[in-house]
C-alpha cells in the first residue's frame, strides 16, 4: 500500500523506473510489511525488543536455544524473569535485558507473553533427532510413570496430564526443541539453573541419569501438541515434592 501510494507519483514517461521500484520492493520483502506497522503505545510495542532472540510473537528463536515464551503460564515466566535479574539463572544477555526492570513491570511482561496465542511448530520426528524406539519408550515411561524406585516422579504429576503445564506457575513441556530441554535439565542437574527454594526441579533432575534426560527430552520433542494447548487450571493431586516456585504448593504429599 505504502509503495503503491508513493510510486503513483512516478511520471508515466519513465515506466522502467516503476519496474525498478517494484523489484526493489520485492527485494525488501517482509521488511516492508514490518515497516508499515504503526507505532502504538502498548506493551506489545515495548516487547519488540524481545523478538530478536525469542522470535516473532515470542514463538522461539531459530536455533533451539531461545525458547518459546508465548502462551507459557504467567507465574512461570515471571519467576524466570526475576531469576535472570537476581542471579538464579545465568545468561548474561538476558540478565542485561531485565537488569533495570521492576517486579511490577516484569509481571506485566509475563502476563503479556502468557496471553499471546501463536501457532506451535510441528514436533520433531524420531529420525530428525536420531531417537531409537527403545529410547522413546523409556522416555514415555518416565514422563507418564516416573521411576518410584529411584524417587523420580512422573512429569505429568506436575506438568499436567496433557503436558501443557498448570497455571499459573508450572510450564508446559511440549513444543520445545530437544536441545533446549536437554540444556535445561542438564543445568538443573549441575545447579547452573535454579528456582526459588525448595528447588523441586533440581531435586528431580539430580535423580536423572544422562540417559534418562535424553530419553525424556527425545520423547517430549517428538510429541504433538493436544488440541487445547492452554495450561491446565490445577494439578490433579498434591505435588509430589515441595516447590518454592509454585504458589500454594504447601499442601504437599511428603
Amino acid at each position, binding site marked *: 500500500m505504502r509503495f503503491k501510494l508513493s510510486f503513483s507519483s512516478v511520471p508515466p514517461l519513465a515506466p522502467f523506473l516503476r519496474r525498478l521500484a517494484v523489484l526493489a520492493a520485492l527485494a525488501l520483502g517482509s521488511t516492508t510489511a514490518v515497516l508499515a506497522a504503526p507505532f502504538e503505545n502498548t506493551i506489545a*510495542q515495548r516487547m519488540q525488543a524481545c523478538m530478536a532472540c525469542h522470535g516473532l510473537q515470542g514463538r522461539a528463536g531459530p536455533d533451539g536455544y531461545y525458547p518459546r515464551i508465548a502462551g507459557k503460564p504467567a507465574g512461570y515466566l515471571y519467576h524466570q524473569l526475576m531469576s535472570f535479574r537476581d542471579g538464579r539463572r545465568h545468561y548474561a544477555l538476558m540478565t542485561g535485558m531485565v537488569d533495570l526492570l521492576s517486579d511490577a513491570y516484569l509481571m506485566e511482561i509475563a502476563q503479556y507473553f502468557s496471553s499471546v496465542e501463536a501457532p506451535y511448530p510441528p514436533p520433531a520426528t524420531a529420525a530428525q533427532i536420531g531417537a531409537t524406539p527403545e529410547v522413546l519408550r523409556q522416555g514415555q515411561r518416565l514422563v507418564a510413570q516416573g521411576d518410584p524406585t529411584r524417587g523420580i516422579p512422573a512429569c505429568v504429576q506436575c506438568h499436567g496430564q496433557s503436558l501443557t503445564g498448570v497455571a499459573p506457575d508450572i510450564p508446559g513441556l511440549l513444543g520445545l526443541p530437544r536441545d533446549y530441554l536437554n540444556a535445561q535439565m542438564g543445568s538443573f542437574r549441575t545447579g547452573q539453573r535454579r528456582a526459588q527454594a525448595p528447588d523441586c526441579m533440581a531435586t528431580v533432575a539430580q535423580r536423572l541419569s544422562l540417559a534418562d534426560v535424553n530419553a525424556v527430552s527425545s520423547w517430549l520433542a517428538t510429541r504433538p501438541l493436544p488440541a487445547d494447548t492452554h495450561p491446565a487450571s490445577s494439578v490433579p493431586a498434591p505435588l509430589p515434592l515441595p516447590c518454592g516456585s509454585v504458589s500454594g504448593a504447601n499442601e504437599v504429599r511428603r
Partner: protein
Amino acid sequence: MKKLWIARLAVVAVLAGVAGLVWHLNVRDEPDVSASEPASVPTPAILARGEYLARAGDCMACHTARGGAAFAGGLALATPFGTVYTSNLTPDDATGIGTWSSADFWRALHNGRAKNGRLLYPAFPYTNYTKITREDSDALYAWLRTLAPVRQPNRPNALRWPYNTQVALAVWRALYFTPGTYTPDTARSAQWNRGAYLVQGLGHCSACHAARNALGATSDSMDLAGGLIPLQNWYAPSLQSPQEAGVADWSTADIVKLFQTGATRHGWVTGPMAEVVLRGTQYLSQQDLASVAQYLKALPGAHADAAPAARAYPPVSPMVAMAGAKLYQDRCAQCHGATGQGVPNAYPALAGNRVVTMDRPANLVQMVMYGGFAPATAGNSRPFGMPPYVLVLSDSEIAAVLTHIRMSWGNDAGPVSEFQVKRLRNTATP
C-alpha cells in the same frame, strides 16, 4: 672504598626519606579513632538523612551482589589490576561494620583506611568521599547500623602483584590522594555550592566521567571531561563538552527530569548511568537535583557557542555505505524511523543525537550488541527497549550500520571500523 660507603649511605638515606614521606602522606589528616564515643540514639531525622545520602552515593550498587542481601557486599569489581570485592556494610560484628565506631567509618570515607588499619583500594571512591562532611558521614553511619546484620565474610581481593601490596597502595596514595574537605566558593550561590558538593563528593561523578591514567587515577574530582570505564567499555561522556553530554544549553527542568526518570522526550540513559539513575538519583529531592543541574550547567567549556572545526574523515567505500543503509532499513528503521527521527517518549531520535555523533563510538557499539531497556523508574515505569544484536550482526555489519547512522540526516561524525567493533566486542560484558 670510603666513597662507596658514602654512596650506599646516601641511597639508604634517600630511600628512608621517601618511605618516611610516603608514610607521612598516608596518615595526613587522620582522626583519632581510639577515643571512646558517647552512646547516642540517632534521631529519625538523622536516620532519614543517612538513607537519603546512601541513595545519593548509590552505595548499594557496589555493596550488593546480584541476588545477594542488600549492603552485604561481595560484588566483583573488575579493574585493570585485578578484581576487587566489595565489603559488607551491614552491622554484623564478625563480618560487617558492627564493631566500627563513627570515627572508624569517617576515617574510611575521609582517609580511605579501614578499621583494622589497612589502606583501602580506591575502587571505593574515597578520593571523592573525602569531601563529605563529618555530619553527613555520621548520618550514613547511623543509618547503616539500623540494617539487619548479615553474616557474610568479605571475599579477599584478587589483585596482581604488585597492586596487591599495601606498599604499592601507599605509594599510589602518596601520588594521587589528598584528604580534603569541600570548601564553599563564596563567589557562587548556595545552590551552586550544594550541587558542587554532591557532584564532587558523594555523587562521585568523576569516578566515571573523567579519564584515568595508567595507574587508574583520575586527575581530580572537578574534572568531568569524560572517560572510558575500564573493562566495561562504556564511555562516560564529557559533562563539559557541548559535543558530548554537556548540559549548559539544557533547561534545568530537563536535567532534573533525566535524573528523576532516566528518560527525556529525546532519549534515555544507558549503561552504568542507567543504574545510577535507577538506584540513586531518582530518589533525590527536586531541590538537590536542581542544584546539581545548576552546577553542571556552569561547568567550564560547556557552551556550544564555538562551532567545532570541520573534520576530515577517512572515505567510506560504496559497499559499506550500501550495506549500512540496507541494515538500517531492515533492523533499525522500524523504531528509529526512516530518517532517524525516532518516536518521542519511546525510541530515541538518531538524527542530531550526541550519543550517535560523539567521537567515541563505544556506547553505540554496546547498545547495538547488547540492547536493553531504559531503567524502570517511578517516573518511567514501563520503559521501551532495544533488542540485542550481538548474535545476529557481525562486526563488519555493526560497523557499517553505525557508520550509516553517524553520517546520515545531517549527522557529521566519522565512520566506525570493523576493528573498533571487534575490540569492543571481545572485552565487553553486558
